[in-house]
């Protein structure tokens, strides 16, 4: 399967979920500040990357793990990916989309916006990193559910 973790900008929640899935981050303790440096694409994705599936790695069962930034247009982007894969003759049923948005986490929202949209990385990155630490248990639960689902497939 191809597992796609997606969120608004594809820069924080989804790279963190992908890193948990691939074992880059341990799922039984909160990550340290330095652990975030190991997450591929963390706080790196920009507007021009939105709508693009970014490959992060393969898990132990051979599933491909991707991240995706789709702004507020969840249905639009997911439908386009599925429908245009279908039109081009590809097997779209292999794609499994997991929403990682943490809207109720103001540190992730304001930090992410400051760093990615405004370009205030020095201010935004620490905020969004702290926010991601707070959201980490939720992301771990989401990844566990996803792994359970893919095992059943």
């Amino acid at each position: 399967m191809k597992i796609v973790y997606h969120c608004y900008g594809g820069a924080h929640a989804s790279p963190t979920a992908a890193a948990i899935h691939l074992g880059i981050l341990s799922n039984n303790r909160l990550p340290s500040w330095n652990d975030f440096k190991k997450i591929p694409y963390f706080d790196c994705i920009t507007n021009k990357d939105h709508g693009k599936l970014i490959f992060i790695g393969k898990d132990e069962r051979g599933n491909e793990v991707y991240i995706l930034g789709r702004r507020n247009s969840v249905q639009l982007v997911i439908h386009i990916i599925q429908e245009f894969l279908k039109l081009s003759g590809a097997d779209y049923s292999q794609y499994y989309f997991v929403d990682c948005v943490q809207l109720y986490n103001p540190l992730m929202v304001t930090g992410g916006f400051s760093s990615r949209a405004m370009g205030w990385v020095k201010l935004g990155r620490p905020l969004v990193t702290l926010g991601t630490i707070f959201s980490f248990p939720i992301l771990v639960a989401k990844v566990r559910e996803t792994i359970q689902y893919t095992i059943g497939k």
Partner: protein
Amino acid sequence: MNVKFFYFYAGFSQSALIAAYIHLQKLPGNRVPALQEILSIQEFKQGIPRDIGVPHFIGEDYRGDSVYTVAFGTNYELALQTVNFILEKQGLDLTKWHFINAGELANNLWMKIGSLINDIFKISGLGKYLIAVGIRKNYQQLCEQVSQFKKES
């Protein structure tokens, strides 16, 4: 591989539908059709499914090229970015996939009022009648632009 044409829209699915019908020569290119001709189009009467990002096949032209309408909403830059990414990823020839913003082809006050009456107040008959009046007002322009688009592609 045959060419695929996509008339995309944000609000008025009818403008995309009419552009597709002109493209397919199901509506005349040399005169403005009567109101009844527009109102009797099956998809115009029933409405195109408005699942955002899902292409709706309208027909094949005399060259065997496929013509679709698709709702991209207001975020069409992101939609086009996503489509281009998927097509490139599949290794497809992008010159065979054409996208045109039908909302820019026909968008006048009659259509706006008609759409409002149709979508918000659910008075379908009156709403569609006003949209058809609006389409007739912009029809020549619509034909010229579709013709130009076909020549360029």
